[in-house]
């Protein structure tokens, strides 16, 4: 059943507002384009000299503005044909609780808070080993043509299906095989995601009494907030969040006192001990009631997230730091960088997922947000706009990573096997890479932020914290505040990573219970305690295993696991884009299928190339099986190969490489299954359009008047005034003409 043309009124209004640009708006957009172009020009032409981060901001913001104004509008009006006369699920099924039409400006905030987390702060930092340019180009181009498109189109199709989830849409629209592959993909990805995020935190907190104390304090703070909201004053979220944030700041300050006191030893934990604590925490947090720990932590991390990101944007604009990293390093072409192995294509595109194209967003865009959207026309500002904002966060992460001394960057981000344990060995190793830094400078950098060492603090969080502390301390407090800002940044990342660990374990458990329920009925009952405990233990055991492996691996856990996480995230994006493309074809929009089809093709090329190299490359730095063979041969010959220090570590490498290699194969197979199944459905739909069954909810009339964008146009203002509504919009008694 092909999509009926949108009704006449929509076409007219769309035409009236978009047709015929006024001279003033032409001038404005030419100016915006110029700003962006000059930004890119300076970035591209700078050779050797250090340039201001302002150019990076100009390039990104100029491109975002053009992408939003023109490309997202084209997608909304021509491709999706969003219909302002059509009632959304929020309007039709309004129950005042989970389905309710929400002010677009509020929903934008909700959606942004739900999609942006630690991801856009981690990937871009790691990718900076190739210089600031490759990462920035991918973040900006990727978001405009792929990431934001995916989020917006998924949001649109899910809105037309009462907020169905990505998995359900895959099953309904592609079929049981593709649907099942999508489900398995989500589960495996969740495990890898949680392991990598937990590893980031373990690396940041190891041997850091300040960090361990402040992060540890978040647990009693959250418990107090939970108790307050449950028993003392239910629902007073704002006041309890303010109290929580105040306590949190106190915990960061107190961390400094603890680190200087005789208690420091108690809070100085090594990586192995931290893993055990993390796993125990993950299990307990996920079986405790939501109100005790998860809900208050969520409020706290959202407040911190939005606040800190806003502060950072202001800080970058005021401080306007200078980028010290070269625009492109030799690692980009040689592919032998210490942070992650492999050349620019495909590995930059794998390493930066969140901020450019993140499959996980499809899970948020299909689910909660579609149940709250007032108007179909708002998918543009919420889906596309919020993703652009996340991309901007990723650009700030690039800036944070590239304003610190490159020598320090590589000393922090290289595995222990590369830089060794002393500042002397690290200085030597980094100088060997071509980025000179003295042992004294390395020691001073650690001293500035009151840490014993910064060497091999891989995972991105410490690097980001260093950059952020440099920016903030140049605006407020000077060098004396560096240690505070560093631990503030660590706290801010740790807070929402721990929240994700808890929430993600619950989602994984829920999926597992649902599947196990087919075998043993009691598992489906989410209040059946043994089922909850067993499923939680399996999920925690899964990510706990990879976390442990990541800490023990002599080759460096981030170096080994981050590519797997990137591939997994891009795999999920492939599933989402395949569902979107299939839906475009099935709904009679074949000629526009390239809008999601091209990003899908690119994403598949990147993901499959990366998987292929990870499986078949003969270079043991890249290929997991080549690595396995190298170390196995070493064991057989009784030789110890660096960076392993003994035969036990050699065995660890062999086991890890085998597991990682098998996972790479699994991911590649899952992608192929989803794609083949989607292609089959598309071909069928093109051959026999009359037989296509869409699961779309039929059109019904909307009585809501609300602007499409964040700021109402003059015409929308007239409509609102005529209906007697304020700028938030709302329901009218008369049908919308």
């Amino acid at each position, binding site marked *: 059943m092909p999509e009926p043309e949108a009704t006449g009124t929509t076409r007219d209004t769309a035409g009236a507002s978009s047709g015929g640009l006024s001279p003033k708006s032409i001038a404005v957009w030419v100016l915006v384009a110029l700003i962006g172009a000059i930004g890119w020009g300076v970035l591209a032409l700078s050779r050797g000299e250090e340039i201001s981060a302002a150019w990076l901001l100009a390039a990104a913001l100029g491109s975002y503005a053009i992408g939003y104004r023109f490309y997202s509008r084209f997608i909304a009006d021509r491709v999706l044909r969003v219909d302002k006369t059509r009632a959304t699920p929020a309007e039709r099924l*309004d*129950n*005042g*609780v*989970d389905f*309710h039409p*929400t*002010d677009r*400006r*509020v929903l934008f*905030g*909700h959606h942004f*808070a*739900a*999609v*942006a*987390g*630690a*991801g856009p702060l981690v990937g871009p930092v790691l990718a900076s080993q190739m210089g600031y340019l490759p990462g920035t180009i991918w973040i900006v181009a990727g978001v405009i043509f792929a990431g934001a498109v995916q989020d917006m189109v998924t949001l649109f199709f899910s809105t037309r299906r009462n907020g169905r*989830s990505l998995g359900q849409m895959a099953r309904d629209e592609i079929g049981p095989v593709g649907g099942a592959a999508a489900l398995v993909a989500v589960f495996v990805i969740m495990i890898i*995601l949680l392991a990598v*995020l937990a590893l980031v935190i373990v690396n940041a907190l190891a041997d850091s009494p300040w960090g361990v104390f402040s992060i540890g304090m978040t647990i009693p703070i959250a418990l107090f907030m939970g108790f307050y*909201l*449950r028993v003392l004053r*239910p*629902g*007073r*979220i*704002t006041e309890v*969040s303010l109290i929580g944030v105040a306590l949190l700041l106190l915990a960061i300050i107190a961390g400094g006192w603890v680190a200087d006191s005789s208690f420091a030893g108690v809070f100085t934990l090594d990586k192995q001990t931290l893993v055990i604590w993390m796993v125990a925490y993950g299990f307990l947090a996920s079986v405790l*009631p*939501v*109100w005790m720990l*998860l*809900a208050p932590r*969520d*409020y706290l991390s959202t407040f911190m997230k939005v606040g800190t990101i806003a502060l950072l944007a202001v800080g970058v604009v005021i401080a306007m730091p200078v980028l010290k990293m070269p625009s492109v390093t030799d690692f980009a072409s040689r592919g032998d960088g210490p942070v992650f192995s492999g050349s620019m294509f495909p590995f930059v595109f794998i390493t930066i997922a*969140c901020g450019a194209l*993140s499959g*996980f*967003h499809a*899970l*948020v865009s299909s*689910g*909660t947000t579609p149940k709250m959207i007032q108007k179909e026309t708002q998918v543009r500002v919420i889906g596309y706009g919020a993703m652009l904002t996340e991309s901007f966060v990723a650009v700030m992460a690039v800036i944070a990573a590239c304003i610190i001394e490159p020598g320090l960057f590589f000393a922090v981000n290289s595995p222990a096997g590369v830089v060794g344990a002393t500042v002397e060995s690290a200085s030597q190793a980094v100088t060997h890479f071509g980025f000179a830094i003295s042992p004294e400078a390395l020691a001073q950098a650690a001293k500035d932020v009151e840490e014993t060492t910064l060497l091999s603090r891989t995972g991105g969080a410490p690097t980001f914290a260093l950059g952020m502390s440099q920016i903030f301390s140049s605006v407020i407090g000077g060098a004396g505040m560096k240690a505070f800002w560093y631990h503030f940044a660590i706290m801010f990342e740790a807070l*929402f990573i721990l*929240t*994700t660990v808890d*929430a*993600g374990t*619950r*989602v994984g*458990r*829920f999926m597992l219970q649902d599947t196990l329920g087919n075998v043993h009925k009691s598992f489906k009952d*989410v*209040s059946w305690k043994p089922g909850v405990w067993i499923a939680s233990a399996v999920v925690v055991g899964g990510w706990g295993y990879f976390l442990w492996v990541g800490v023990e691996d002599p080759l460096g856990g981030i170096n080994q696991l981050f590519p797997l996480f990137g591939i997994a*995230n891009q795999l999920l994006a492939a599933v989402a884009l395949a569902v979107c493309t299939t839906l475009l074809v099935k709904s009679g929009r074949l000629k526009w299928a390239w809008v999601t089809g091209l990003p899908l093709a690119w994403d598949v090329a990147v993901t499959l190339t990366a998987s292929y190299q990870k499986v078949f490359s003969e270079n043991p730095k890249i290929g997991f099986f080549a690595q396995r063979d190298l170390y196995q041969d070493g064991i057989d010959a009784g030789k110890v190969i660096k960076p392993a220090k003994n035969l036990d570590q050699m065995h660890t490498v062999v086991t890890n490489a085998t597991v990682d290699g098998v996972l790479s194969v699994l991911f590649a197979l899952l992608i192929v299954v989803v794609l083949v199944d989607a292609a089959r459905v598309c071909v069928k739909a093109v051959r026999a359009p009359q037989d296509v069954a869409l699961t779309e909810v039929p059109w019904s009339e909307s009585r809501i008047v609300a602007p499409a964008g964040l700021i109402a146009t003059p015409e929308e203002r007239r409509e609102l005034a005529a209906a007697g509504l304020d700028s938030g919009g709302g329901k009218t008694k008369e049908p919308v003409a």
Partner: protein
Amino acid sequence: MSGVREALAKARYYVREFSGEAAYDRYVAHARSHDPDAEVLTRRAFERARTDAREADPREGFRCC
């Protein structure tokens, strides 16, 4: 003066909406819009039900990495 008051009211509206504090008022308004004398849950019971719903299906309100 009225400008300041208006700005404060607007800020309060956004904070309450964004944090979810307004959920109870919305629920009551929704219930009363159909029947002015409708029985509604107390705030305590409502907030409990709201958090416990996440227990039953953790996918609601899931946040990304």
